[in-house]
């Protein structure tokens, strides 16, 4: 059986066993994989070596290999990290990304759990009343010049009155699926539509150019993703444990924090990382909402295009310090993120 001779063609193209590849397809596979690996690596390599170049090395370039065709220097690193104020934006970025991610994950996971495990119902009439009053309030403030605390107060009173009288009798109601769809569909909204009013809102609250404004906005923008992903993690765990805890008298909140959350730990890690990366790299909202105080790294990077032309070496330092931590985290936890995204993509 093992002495069966294989022709050259068979030996080259047909695998010996099922878990191995024949030589020719194997070489082709490796060739393509290495080709794409180069496409991924060359830009990263170029940024890394440019951060060790001085203006002369760039202007007379291109030079490719440190110590061989140019002498690396720490000049740009020294300039950006010690003389320039890079630390400020860096801390802003860390605070905005971490803070917003914690808020988004906690709030989003709570909502997702409720959507999966409880029956929710909102009367359509209540929603319509709310939207009508909101529009009326805005119209009153903007075109009639009513001071906003008065308009808001009267709207709240009217809304409560309406809820306890009129909408009680309405029939049509929105259920869990509708609420969930509404929350997730908020992600479709391009941030550019919402950013002007958010800008005005923070201006009125005197919170423009603060870390708090960024934390709140990023949390809101990423909340739909958290609900979309964690919903499926909660739906996948068996309900028995939670039910028996509830029979023993534990409250829903207690069940959520002590039983449900620990069970979806790895999914939460994936969600947390994904949202963290999105918040860390965010550019448009930071561009609108920050100035000198709360400037984040992406805005700082884009601001390096000075009147003397782009300072490539300084910019490269910033890019390297920005991507190093996320790349490190992602490398270690890559499998988690992939699995988390897959769960979300399967159920949608």
């Amino acid at each position, binding site marked *: 059986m093992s002495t069966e001779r294989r022709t050259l063609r068979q030996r080259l193209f047909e695998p010996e066993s*099922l*878990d191995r590849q024949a030589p020719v397809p194997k070489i082709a*596979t490796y060739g*393509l*994989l290495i080709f794409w*690996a180069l*496409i*991924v690596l060359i*830009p*990263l390599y*170029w*940024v890394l070596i440019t951060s060790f170049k001085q203006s002369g090395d*760039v202007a007379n*370039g*291109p030079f490719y290999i440190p110590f061989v065709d140019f002498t690396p220097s720490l000049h740009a690193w020294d300039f950006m990290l010690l003389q320039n104020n890079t630390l400020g934006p860096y801390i802003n970025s860390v605070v905005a990304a971490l803070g917003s991610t914690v808020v988004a994950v906690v709030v989003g996971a*709570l*909502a997702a759990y*409720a959507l999966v*495990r*409880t029956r929710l119902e909102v009367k359509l009439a209540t929603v319509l009343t709310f939207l009508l009053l909101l529009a009326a309030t*805005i*119209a009153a403030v903007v075109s009639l010049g009513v001071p906003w605390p008065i308009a808001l107060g009267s709207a709240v009173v009217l809304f409560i009155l309406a809820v306890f009288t009129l909408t009680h009798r309405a029939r049509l109601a929105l259920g869990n699926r509708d*609420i969930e769809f509404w*929350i997730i569909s908020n992600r*479709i*909204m*391009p*941030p*550019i*539509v*919402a*950013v*002007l*009013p958010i800008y*005005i809102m923070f201006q009125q609250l005197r919170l423009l150019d603060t870390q708090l404004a960024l934390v*709140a906005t990023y949390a*809101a923008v990423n*909340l739909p993703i958290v609900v979309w992903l964690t919903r499926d993690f909660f739906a996948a765990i068996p309900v028995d444990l939670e039910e028996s805890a509830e029979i023993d008298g534990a*409250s*829903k*909140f207690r069940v959520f924090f002590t039983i449900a959350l620990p069970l979806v730990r790895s999914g939460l890690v994936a969600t947390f990382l994904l949202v963290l*990366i999105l918040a860390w*790299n965010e*550019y*448009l909202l930071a*561009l609108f909402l920050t100035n000198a105080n709360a400037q984040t790294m*992406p805005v700082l990077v884009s601001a390096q295009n000075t009147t003397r032309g782009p300072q490539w070496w300084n*910019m490269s330092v910033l*890019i390297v310090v920005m991507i190093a931590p996320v*790349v490190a985290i*992602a*490398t270690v936890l*890559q499998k988690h*993120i*992939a699995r988390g995204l*897959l769960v*979300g*993509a*399967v159920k*949608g």
Partner: protein
Amino acid sequence: MTAFADTAIDSVPRPGLGERLDRYAGRLMVLPAVIILLCFAIFPLIISAYLALSRFALAPGGFTLKFIGLSNFRKLLSGSQQYHFLGTFGAFGPAAWGLVALAAIALLYCMARYLRGGSVTAVGIVGRLIAVSLTMGLVLVSVATLATSGVPGTLVTTLLYVVIGVTVQFLLGLGLALLCAQPIRGRNFFRVLYFVPLMVTPVGIAYTFRMLADMQKGPFAPIVRSFGVGEWSWATEAWSARLMVLVGDTWQWTPFMFIVLLAAIENQPRDQVEAARIDGASSLQIFRDITWPAIAPVAGTVVLIRLIEAFKIIDLPNVLTGGGPGLATESMTLHAFIAWRTQDLGASAAVGYMLLFVSTVVCITFFNFVVRPSRRLES
């Protein structure tokens, strides 16, 4: 009577605060999310609608807002900003007419099939009418502005980024995922490496690709020079500038497609694949009959997610080319941003709303006609 009431209270303990709270637990848990979204999505959307319908002007000591109806939108669609938003229309040649006719026939066929299919509802008809008319409009504008004498505006440029970018990223991601799923050594190394570009901030990518594509000082400059085109610059020509934006976008987002599709491929029924291979099925057959049906729902969803995000593109064109040359690389978000910078808040909000409308209709259409059927394929 009173005695009866007393015993009743004794035997059934009155619900305490905790229990009453528990009855509303579901609502209380959703409430923070709803409040946050109301403050940062619904409330801004309403204000934005108001801004889009009014003219903003700086006045001594503040600003004035004057209600002007739909004229901001009219300006974009048929007025002084038409060249910017829709583009400049070229003359229709026979090829252009052919394309338009083809699109019209395809859309009419879909509509007719739905109407004759039996289960017709009012919502279904209205939704399809919106989808069909928007698609037809987009096809017309694209064909007219991409014709030889036309100049595409920000709407068509955004569509180009979305359609070409997402297609290329999906195909590349799928190809790489299939390669990485082969039984070879070192595949873990490749999968970790391929994941990295997703982590890089888009602003950083834009500058990096500017460095790489520098025709004088970039790493490829000697190669380019040996072809004798050293003086040429990609940034001065419309299509090469757009290509650069697409290259940067593809570099960043292919990993996203790759990582999810790879996880899906590894999740496919392994015994079926092995049985097919023993029976002598070719790789192509295995892909078509086993792998593709297994990953189709995931593929539909990742493309949908990418579609949603692709419409929002701004960082790359803004940093890479500043929207130039001319309007060649300007996306709709960048258009709105530039309008905001020139204090034209009404136009900015109007562009934002147009983007919201187009992306919502496209994404919902895609969800209904691609993602949903692909899920049925699986079960």
